[in-house]
């Protein structure tokens, strides 16, 4: 019984982890940069959802549809100002990590100046609601999040694997120069990927706002978690986030019950290191040592 509940809770937690990591993974997969400010974009998405919800009381699912284009615009601004100047330089990898680390300062404190440090939370009609599946209890909000994550991954997968546009994106991610030779506008694909990646984080922020309250430094917690998820599942593997999320969710829930809740994250971190050493490309990822 408890095993089933651990499984269920773990999978739902995994859904949240996966949800907040999809965008990060997309960006890494295509542009090959690690966005250290990922958690901060999530925070901005959460604020956006908070303000829209308090003003309109509409469903967060709908809110995320509004947030998507807004976050794309923000993504584009950041892309132009911070990311693009660093692409194609000698140390793109290192410099983007550092520049996006700097970006965490900027975004966190921008949020602080604009919206103060107060915690903000919304309560939706579904919050704290759950339904039972046999003897297992499932949270409505988390199930929502899980389903939306699933939908996002499927849609993303469909777009990438089945559409012409997706093929272009994959082409760019596999060989940038060959893509240019095929008449693909790589810069455009990069910019768009970054924007969509950021927009996906924004959507994730909107979806989890009924579950977590938002404040300027909330992103810090999510940032590290999503890196672990993404590396575990495979940096750049478009379905890797889901797998990584589920693994981390299950490991943390099980470790929390069987060992201690406080050290649950240590287990997932150790697993993460183990995977790095044994199969650094992640469980579904591409070769990391090249």
């Amino acid at each position, binding site marked *: 019984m408890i095993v089933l509940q651990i499984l269920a809770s773990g999978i739902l937690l995994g859904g949240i982890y996966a949800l907040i990591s999809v965008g990060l993974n997309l960006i890494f997969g295509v542009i090959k940069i690690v966005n250290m400010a990922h958690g901060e974009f999530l925070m901005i998405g959460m604020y956006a959802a908070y303000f829209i919800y308090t003003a309109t009381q509409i469903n967060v699912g709908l809110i995320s549809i509004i947030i998507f284009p807004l976050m794309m615009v923000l993504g584009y601004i950041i892309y132009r100002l911070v990311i693009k100047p660093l692409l194609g330089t000698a140390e793109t990898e290192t410099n983007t990590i550092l520049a996006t680390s700097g970006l965490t300062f900027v975004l966190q404190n921008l949020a602080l100046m604009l919206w103060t*440090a107060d915690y903000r939370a919304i309560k939706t009609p579904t919050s704290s609601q759950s339904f039972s599946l046999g003897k297992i209890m499932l949270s409505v909000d988390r199930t929502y999040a899980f389903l939306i994550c699933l939908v996002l991954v499927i849609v993303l997968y469909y777009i990438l694997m089945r559409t012409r546009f997706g093929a272009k994106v994959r082409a760019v991610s596999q060989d940038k120069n060959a893509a240019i030779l095929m008449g693909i506008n790589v810069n455009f694909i990069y910019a768009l990927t970054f924007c969509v990646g950021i927009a996906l984080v924004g959507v994730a922020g909107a979806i989890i706002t009924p579950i977590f309250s938002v404040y300027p430094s909330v992103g810090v917690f999510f940032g590290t978690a999503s890196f672990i998820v993404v590396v575990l599942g495979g940096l750049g593997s478009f379905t890797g986030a889901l797998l990584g999320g589920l693994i981390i969710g299950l490991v*943390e829930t099980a470790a929390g019950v069987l060992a201690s809740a406080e050290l649950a994250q240590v287990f997932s971190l150790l697993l993460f290191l183990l995977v790095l050493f044994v199969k650094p490309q992640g469980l579904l990822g591409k070769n990391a040592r090249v």
Partner: protein
Amino acid sequence: MKKITSILLSVALVLSLAACGGDSKDSSGDAASSGAEAETSGEINVYVGVEEPLTGANASLGTAEYNAIELCVEMLNEKGGVLGQYPITYETVDTQSDAATGASEVERLITTKGVPVVIGSYGSGIAAAVSEVCERYDTLLWEQSGAADTLLQNGYEWTFRTESMASLWGATSVDYIVDQADYVKEVLGKDIPELKVAIIHEDGSYGTAVGQGNHAAAEKIGMDIVAYEAYSSSTLDLSSVIMKLIAAEPDILLLTGYVNDGSLFLKQSQELGFKVPILITHSGGHSVQAFVDAIGDQVNYLLTVDPVACNPKLDSFDPELQETFKEFEKRWTEKYGVKPAHHVEMRAFAQSYLFFTEVAPKAIEEGGAFTAETCRDAILSLELDASKNLMGSDVKYSTPDEPFIDPTLGGTHVGQNIYAGAFINQYFDGELYCVWPEKYGQKEGVLFLPSSSTLSAGVVD
């Protein structure tokens, strides 16, 4: 070319900032020297430093405290300041929610601005670092919210704390249950030692201290501790903890968390169907508005322990304090559009008010100046009745010669208000009201979660 211009621009930016930094330093030098001048010329200058975390993880509550102090000074200055004739001035620094930054900023306050008194710090960690700096510079630290037990255990002579320490908050929840022993017996059919208690706390400095208090007090009284568990407040999921609780079937749950994990706990408890007859939370995240926003109606009848009585019965306070209390509420509401949260803003206001209306006048009257020494002397000789303290407890501070031995954990504390107490507050219609001790209780406490609550074990109607 573009590159060069942007380099030049950034260099210019840096230089201009450096320049304005230089300016401020000059002016600070002036301030320090003018402070010194004032002292020698015998003029009394009520000048203090305020240090709060205005950015970083604790920025929310740090800013709230800062606003309360600001309003306190504003209200007093309108009446002419301390003793009606010495206006209060202050310098503010941002500790960035970081102990090292806090220490260096306070050192700067002391050494360049020459403040004799520092008021702050919100976080216990920052308070610990700051108290050490104050000790080195013989500067007074009027600590308003660093509740960790360890803060005053170093024997430092310059740090004073008016409110109770965190372990006492933890002990108070047990005391409250013991106080209601008969009622508990009646409902649950168990004597106190038969009660199964679960203690869950976040593993930050605050939760840990309260949890220790819970544990020590429950153990002393012989309760059956069925769970004693910490979790990280950054967690996204508490289902594992709740599953353990469901298995342990406690009669009492003592819970300490911050906003996010606190509300997460309640939401997930409900989702997973956890039920418990008695639930007592401990201040921190459980008393702030975002917590109420997050869990909505479910907040009602939730008990929480705070170092201050929320919406207290005002009768027992001096009439003047009653007025001040109402005035503060009114002005805060006007200024910020919401009622002040008692456990944060009122608590900060109450302690600053105590300092400027009891300590500072005494220092000036008895010592003839407003310096760290005169203030310290004033504090050490201070003895107040609870009616003079908006925090709701008598006031007398322990000294190095007569340290305060903490009844819960047995620690030795210097500079602690030995009468400081903690209060049981309860949510009614989304607002906290003091329910225990009865002296301040505006409403009758509801010990068992009523059946309307989703976590109710259904032991009472």
